[in-house]
């Protein structure tokens, strides 16, 4: 790992923004201020930032139902995202998508996804575009340990190998598919599935930003250089439950404490960079405060923003019909 101070600051800023965004959503949702349902990414921040810091604006990602972190890491505006969560007209999707469908094509964000395993097949297409047009871009498809059991994932990995596409598959394995444990639901191993389909497959500690960053750097460079697709199996954990309102009774108190205290990617990052003298503690704390402030403003602006009007119901179905 050779990251400049600027890059380290960018990494921590991104992780703090994700943390503050989803922590704020947690409280807003509990206060009944937000419609719909939301799936929070707190605890998995190192994965989104470690991957996306290796991507440029023309590279693309497809995300999951737990997508806020990926969106922020790929450069989506947090105020526009927050407005979307409140269903407001100026939201990033005009209030028509909500939490599970945030997309910003201008930032290379091809959409969060309400269908488990829905994104990776779309990533194949972006990768096919890059291969056909001979750009050196890559596309990254995120999915979870639950989605790893969907046929769409197996089909996508196979197709990526067959057509030698610049596609990266990132399995964010937080140990639970809704309330069901990975140990129960995954036959064999996710890593071996990647290998079986001929992908360059690696297991990565998702609590450690630097491990994710390094692994992603390698496979993304390879894909850019025409060496084909890869799978990163990122072992991580989420602080909150499957969705907000989940009492998480399927996890023990000890496990919840361990996730919060010992597996927090922000704490681990902070410890590493301060102990090695790369950044000062005060600098990091300033970044945390800055993120808090930005999210506070995002929420205030979102609450004040207008809802869509009746005429918006019928627009955007077709370009021309």
């Amino acid at each position, binding site marked *: 790992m050779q990251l400049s101070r600027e890059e380290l600051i960018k990494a921590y800023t991104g992780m703090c923004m994700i943390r503050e965004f989803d922590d704020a959503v947690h409280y807003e949702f509990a206060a009944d201020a937000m419609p719909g349902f939301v799936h929070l990414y707190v605890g998995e921040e190192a994965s989104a930032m470690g991957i996306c810091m290796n991507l440029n604006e023309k590279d693309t990602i497809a995300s999951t139902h737990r997508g806020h972190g990926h969106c922020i890491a790929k450069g989506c505006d947090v105020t526009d995202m927050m407005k979307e969560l409140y269903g407001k007209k100026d939201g990033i999707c005009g209030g028509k998508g909500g939490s599970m*469908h945030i997309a910003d094509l201008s930032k290379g964000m091809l959409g969060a996804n309400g269908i488990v395993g829905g994104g990776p097949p779309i990533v194949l297409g972006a990768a096919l575009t890059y291969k056909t047009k001979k750009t050196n871009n890559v596309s990254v498809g995120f999915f979870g340990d639950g989605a790893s059991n969907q046929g769409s994932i197996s089909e996508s990995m196979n197709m990526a190998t067959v057509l030698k596409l610049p596609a990266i598959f990132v399995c964010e394995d937080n140990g639970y598919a809704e309330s069901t444990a990975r140990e129960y639901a995954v036959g064999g191993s996710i890593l071996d599935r990647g290998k079986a389909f001929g992908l360059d497959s690696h297991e990565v500690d998702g609590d450690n930003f630097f491990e994710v960053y390094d692994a992603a750097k390698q496979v993304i460079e390879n894909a850019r250089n025409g060496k084909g697709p890869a799978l990163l199996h990122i072992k991580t954990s989420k602080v909150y439950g499957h969705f907000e309102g989940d009492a998480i009774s399927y996890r023990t108190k000890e496990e919840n404490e361990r996730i919060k205290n010992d597996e927090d990617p922000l704490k681990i990052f902070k410890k590493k960079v301060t102990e090695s003298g790369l950044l000062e503690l005060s600098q990091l704390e300033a970044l945390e405060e800055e993120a808090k402030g930005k999210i506070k403003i995002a929420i205030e602006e979102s609450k004040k923003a207008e809802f869509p009007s009746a005429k918006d119901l019928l627009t955007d179905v077709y370009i021309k019909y």
Partner: protein
Amino acid sequence: MSLKTYREAINEALLQEMKKDENVVVIGEDVAGGAGTNGEQDAWGGVLGVTKGLLKHFGRERVIDTPITETAIMGMASGAALTGLRPVAELMFVDFMGVCFDQILNQTAKFRYMFGGKAVTPLTIRTMYGGGLRAASQHSQCLYPMFTHVPGIKVVVPSNPYDAKGLLTQSIRDNDPVIFMEHKNLYDLSGDVPDESYSIPFGEANFTREGKDITFIGMGQTVDICNKVADTLKKEGKTSTVLDLRTLSPLDEDSILEASEETGKVVIVDESYPRCNIATDISALICQNSFDSLKAGIKMVTPPHTPVPFSPPLEDLYLPSEEKVLSAAKEIL
């Protein structure tokens, strides 16, 4: 202008659009055929030879043979359309939508709306449908109502070679996702087709007969049945209006009402399952908008609510036919 089959008309539209726009790629199972073998390349050109010959013009980079993996095909085509290509993906038989519908229903169809109008998805999905080839329950269905039900996708059902070429050209140039449905019984049907490129706009149904006694409304293969019955009735002194819908989504509601009001007697011929199909939809449309112009109850000629049978006499009984349409017409004439 020259005589071409429905199959050749489709092939020519693909060839001309691929020549015109390098972003057009063809994706599917055996669309060339022979991939990875030591034998003939372009061995099949699609399972019924519709894409034959494209490979020699465009190579495997643009005529992309895939594994048998419909979810990945539909997802890949959707993602490619979203990021700058103009793919024509083939779903070999429409019956196979069962293994890949998520990518059509929940992804492609909804990108534009869910993303607040920012997505452009110029995707064409070509698929083969319909009965008559003794292909049994999983290779003979007319599943277009399942697509017309979904906002965000367009559904095209050409009935003849001229329309097949013009509507496919329009489908490829269109910036919304289009399901282009080819009735497998029509591939050998010949008709006059211009050699040059042309497109037919969506949402414009075609009057193939004009008359005053009765109106037949058909789509895809059933248009031919309607025309033949109209010609039979003419010999008996009754004139008919026949409307070919051409596209089911968008649906040319004005022409449907016009055709219905011309005679006040309507027979709709639809090869899809009878519950919630195009015939019931059109029937409701007419009843809601021009009930007073009707002189008799609307007749619907459809298959029974059963899977498509294999045994030839059973399949013949199952499908709409000239005899059934004629008999339905005579009940209200």
